[in-house]
């Protein structure tokens, strides 16, 4: 644990504006700005819907964060989500009992994670490539063997699903609650279980972790399995909220949004830094951005431009505040 | 298939790795710097017997007694061939194993008894013996084919033909306690009916329970020799170190057998009681004399190692004489009268150290 604690300390240095703070600040600023500019932005209902619209993104970001903290990256997260869920919907629509279908879906996600983890941990393939290739492969595989429809609608019987998607508990949409719950679980996992600590240790310095006797390879595999399964969960949320799963999400820029949420939140791609709080911060920021711009009726494409610029700004500020030290920067840390 | 793969990669049974000397076995120079109690050719078989200590040099039986700081040794008797083991009953009775394949009893109840057969088979290689009560003698036979003096051959042949017997001295009836042992060398009666032997070629200490062996201490970095009491623990002597190269040669059967057929035993690539005395001996790369010194951690075929074990046979501490040293080939070590005595069969000396060192 001690080394874990050390890592935690590194995650929040003694006072120095970390990326997290900057992001939080930016978020606040934006909030104010939009409250001023966008009609109907500053209303409880809108803030709620804001959260709702990004909760799925948030869950995906959680999944990604686990991997990134362990100095990895999972570019296959979206295909995993889409394929596993689309398949389980097809099964479900084909008349299979819901729980079984879901189990199979999760199983598929898990096995994808397993393969990735194995390739990365045992075959020493760089994570970015493994997942890049796996993403393409998984999508292709799903399209070729598992799912024939382009958009897979939930069958009418799936009332429960829709309910989960639409109900509100104490005015808070269930999706947001689920996101919150996941966040909490991940936080506990990362901070208070040995595996969580190990993930930090691993991300901070893999060699040291191995020398310290941590079974690095198992932990690595664990990360990817967790990420994939969580992704599948996020997919279920999507299905619940739009009562369908469109294969085309894979072709969208979603993966970039996820990465941006994670990294903008202050979880360095170098690994070992940040935590769930950063993910939430990032999610909120993105959420405010998207929602505000939609309210201001900015075209989707122009939204991307604005989004990009804001993010760029945030990164630049971060780099200016804590510049990388040429002497201590790790080789091949891109 | 797997076997072939292992052979290809040198993994599994073909692995030539050797356990490191670490922890309780961390090297030191205690044996090397130990004072010499008495000089004797190839001393062996230290056995406490009342107020004196018996030991053997070549085919003579000696006794060692303490005179203040000094030790004095007198010859007691000598025999036809080299003495391979001594067992003292405690009330005057002594059993002596001899390399010509006999065990003689002197003094005590069965004085003059001569055992040269066990279960109607001529005994070849008595390696250790101990009394379990007045009438029973526990006897270790290291090999069916090689006498004790040819232990090196027995090792390189990878024999597992050793056995442990319990002999009723009154009737002469012998019952076999264990069989197919890889050279049982040390013997200790750890308690009523509790027989512990060292299995040299398997680098381990085992207890014999109903014909089966139970591992007490395994993966020793050396070839264990005799076992002796120390308070409630034990002293385990190792007469030679294990080395990668030897393990490798042991697995290269063709080469190994050819070597045994064509070369004198003293020049084999095999463990030895003492090494570095002749330019015909094999030399390993790390053992080159650099700038006039031979590094103590360089690979060596001979070594001096005496390990203290606790009651559960876990190593507590160890005394060493490392590469390039003189006090190699520790075949027996005991605790006697507040001192530690050890025979360096390679170094031709009986060593003495204070208990606390």
């Amino acid at each position, binding site marked *: 644990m001690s080394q874990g604690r050390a890592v935690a300390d590194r995650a929040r240095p003694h006072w120095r504006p970390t990326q997290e703070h900057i992001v939080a600040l930016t978020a606040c600023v934006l909030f104010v700005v939009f409250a001023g500019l966008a009609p109907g932005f500053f209303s409880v209902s809108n803030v709620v819907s804001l959260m709702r619209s990004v909760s799925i993104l948030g869950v995906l970001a959680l999944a990604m964060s686990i991997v990134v903290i362990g100095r990895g990256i999972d570019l296959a997260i979206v295909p995993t989500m889409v394929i596993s869920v689309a398949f389980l919907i097809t099964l479900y629509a084909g008349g299979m009992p819901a729980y079984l279908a879901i189990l199979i879906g999760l199983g598929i996600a898990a096995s994808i994670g397993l393969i990735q983890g194995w390739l990365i941990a045992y075959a020493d393939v760089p994570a970015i490539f493994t997942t890049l290739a796996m993403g393409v492969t998984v999508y292709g595989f799903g399209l070729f063997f598992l799912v024939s429809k382009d958009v897979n609608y939930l069958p009418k019987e799936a009332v429960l699903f829709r309910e989960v998607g639409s109900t509100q508990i104490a005015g808070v949409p269930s999706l947001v609650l689920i996101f919150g719950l996941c966040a909490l679980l991940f936080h506990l996992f990362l901070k208070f279980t040995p595996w969580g600590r190990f993930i930090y240790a691993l991300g901070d310095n893999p060699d040291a972790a191995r020398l310290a006797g941590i079974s690095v390879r198992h932990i690595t595999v664990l990360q990817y399995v967790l990420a994939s399964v969580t992704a599948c969960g996020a997919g279920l949320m999507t299905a619940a909220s739009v009562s369908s799963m469109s294969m085309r999400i894979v072709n969208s820029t979603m993966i970039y949004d996820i990465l941006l949420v994670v990294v903008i939140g202050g979880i360095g*791609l170098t690994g070992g830094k940040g935590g769930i709080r950063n993910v939430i911060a990032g999610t909120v920021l993105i959420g405010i951005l998207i929602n505000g711009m939609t309210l201001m009726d900015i075209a989707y494409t122009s939204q991307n431009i604005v989004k990009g610029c804001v993010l760029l700004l945030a990164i630049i500020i971060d780099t200016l505040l804590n510049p990388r030290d040429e002497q201590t920067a790790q080789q091949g840390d891109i | 298939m797997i076997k072939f793969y292992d052979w290809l990669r040198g993994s599994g049974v073909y692995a030539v790795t050797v356990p490191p000397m670490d922890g309780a076995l961390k090297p030191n120079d205690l044996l090397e710097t130990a004072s010499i109690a008495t000089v004797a050719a190839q001393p062996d078989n230290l056995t406490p017997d009342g107020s004196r200590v018996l030991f053997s040099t070549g085919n003579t039986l000696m006794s060692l007694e303490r005179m203040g700081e000094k030790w004095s040794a007198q010859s007691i008797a000598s025999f036809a061939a080299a003495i391979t083991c001594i067992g003292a009953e405690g009330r005057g009775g002594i059993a002596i194993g001899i390399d010509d394949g006999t065990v003689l009893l002197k003094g005590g109840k069965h004085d003059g008894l001569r055992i040269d057969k066990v279960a109607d088979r001529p005994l070849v290689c008595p390696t250790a013996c101990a009394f379990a009560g007045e009438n029973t003698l526990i006897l270790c036979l290291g090999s069916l084919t090689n006498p004790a003096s040819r232990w090196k051959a027995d090792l390189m042949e990878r024999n597992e033909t050793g056995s442990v017997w319990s002999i009723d001295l009154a009737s002469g009836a012998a019952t076999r306690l264990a069989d197919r042992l890889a050279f049982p060398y040390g013997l200790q009666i750890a308690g009523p009916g509790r027989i512990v032997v060292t299995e040299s070629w398997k680098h381990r200490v085992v207890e014999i329970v109903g014909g089966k062996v139970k591992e007490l201490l395994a993966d020793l970095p050396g070839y264990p020799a005799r076992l002796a009491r120390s308070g409630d623990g034990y002293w385990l002597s190792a007469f030679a170190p294990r080395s990668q190269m030897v393990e490798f040669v042991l697995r290269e059967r063709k080469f190994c057998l050819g070597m045994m057929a064509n070369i004198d035993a003293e020049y084999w690539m095999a463990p030895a009681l003492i090494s570095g005395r002749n*330019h015909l001996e094999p030399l390993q790369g790390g053992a080159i004399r650099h700038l*006039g010194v031979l590094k103590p951690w360089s690979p060596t075929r001979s070594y001096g190692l005496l390990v203290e074990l606790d009651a559960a046979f876990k190593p507590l501490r160890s005394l060493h004489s490392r590469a390039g040293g003189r006090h190699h080939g520790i075949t027996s070590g005991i605790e006697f009268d507040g001192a530690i005595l050890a025979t360096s069969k390679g170094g031709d000396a009986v060593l003495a150290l204070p208990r606390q060192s």
Partner: protein
Amino acid sequence: MSIGENLIRLRYRLIPDQIIGELLSKSWIDTCIPASLLAVTVVVFAAIAPDFLSLDNLSDTGRQLGELGFIAIGLTVVLMAGGIDLSVGSIYGLCNFATLEAFQGLGLPLWLTFLISLGLGGLVGTINGLLIGYLRLRAFLTTLVTLIIVRAIVQTAALTFGEAMTGVAPDRSAWDFVGDGTIAGIPFSLVALAILAVAGHLFLTRSRLGWHVQAVGGSRRSALNAGIPVRRTVFLSYVISGLCCAVAGFLYAARLTNAGPEVGNGTEIMALTAAVLGGISLGGGRGSVSKVLLGTTVVLLITNSLVAMGLRSGGTSFILGLVLLLAVVIDVRWTKNRQKILARVYISPTYFSLPPCPSTAKDSGSVFAANDALTSAEPIGLNAVDGAEDVIFDSQGHLYTGSRQGDVIRFLAPDYAKSEIFAHIGGHPLGMAIDAQDTINVCVSGMGLYAVDQKREVRKLSDQTNRSLFSIRDDSRIRFADDVDIAPDGRMYFSEATVRFDIYEWASDGLELRGNGRIIAYDPRTDTSRTVLSNLIFPNGICVSHDGRSLLFAETWACRISRYWLEGPQAGKVEIITENLPGYPDNINRASDGNYWIALLGMRTPVLDYSLKMPGFRKRMAQRVAFDEWIYPNLNTGMIVKISDSGEVIQSLWDSTGEKHPMITSMREHAGNLYIGGIFNNRIGRLPLPNADPAWTGPRSYWGGR
């Protein structure tokens, strides 16, 4: 000798095992992976894909290659500088659109269009470069953002201008030439790529900036500390990448006039795949243009053929993904294990056998009977010398020797109590020969043959010889010059113990026992060197005979001394004069009584002798057992023998316990004393020779009295 043994001998005579290792140690072996991958792809698809090898398919693929190739090369430069550029796809799309807008929409001339496109690409590249190079943002993240922004810009532009832009194909010839034209049957874009490829190769391998790029990628920190302008280098790498994308976009526009907003979507992944397939490492530093081109070709062939085969949706990406995975795994494992494999297979022992060793027992009456004559030698420079492989005297009687630190050390006559560093060479000086001007000609391990004159000036005489035919590895460099002597005509003959190993691996050569050594003659008049004898078994000591008509040399592992005739009827012939020594001969030097002293660096041991007949055993030993545990000659014994001119052994001096003089590598007789050197010893020994001519010295014996 049994039949089995003969077979073994034959097998090792016939099959040259060492070749595998030498192939593996070639640097171009890396490129074999993508190359073989390409071969496989071509074969497979030629077999299954329709009209794969048809002309228009190839020319079509060629055009696409032209475009993707540009992007991939640009990306490679960035990757090799240790960065990554995800925005290539977007830049590509942007420039494609800009070109079309400028050319078709605004109707600008082609050259201006091209410049605009270049400008845009360069601009984005510059932004990336500024952010990542100078502000030192994270490459991955930054280019990710630029990717999104630029893509969005393209889309917005496509919305605003896309419809306005007339879709009618322009009828301007230049444009069509760029798009569809061919030069000598080769698509224009492909020609352009070829030019870029050559330029890029020269840039990366020959230009300063290219080297800087590789250095930064190899180790950013070291590059920084070495004073390389890291930031500027990184910056420029992104600009280059941007420009390459611009050209690609321009070509694409000319080919398809497709102003769609999706152009270049996912191209970054294609390009990355290409780079990885080509074996460009992510960490940076490793890669080449040829490799990335191979990778690009593979990717394109695969994708095109799959599309042409019209698999059901998903099939294409499925297979593409699998291929990428496979390629990456292979590449990773290869680069990880190549050195290991090399280490395993490089040492390739061969069969050898020595006759039974002559007796050396003290009481045996043999001339080799062990004694301790050398133990009475008194030490010179005790604990001051380190690595005195050879000792030699000049006409003034000063003693020279080498040191591991790369110096030539001089002990001053007459008592040799004072010593000084005579000259610093840098490599470990081994065998020495002194000429009439008291210039010390010395073999320096890893460097070659050098000369140090009395003004202490160090001069290179020879570091290469003629490369032998049919040798896989380039053996023209001199790796392990060992001992030298000077013939009356002034030519210097020096031995290179082995061409396959460096000095610190000398034992490996002893394990191999192949004829890896050679004797080289250096002619000072023409300042050229040529190999006179090769395939010798560790040729070591060399000594010109007293009459100066022949040359004695020792073959260490073969335990024999041979004579090489310099002149006379048998000139150029070699005859063995002493065989089956009980140890391994090192240096040979003249003795005052017309005989020769021979240092034996170690003694034969029965086990080692026996193992010579079992190459397999020795190979496995080299693989399984740690270097320090290998069976060596018994080097902890010192022995010197004296042989007559005809080669029969006259006398032997021992330090049988090696207490004072283990591993004797050389000895010189000088003024009635024998001076003994050992490369690993901490002293030089001086042994008075009772019945030797006290007036005799080496220089006199060689150059007469002066």
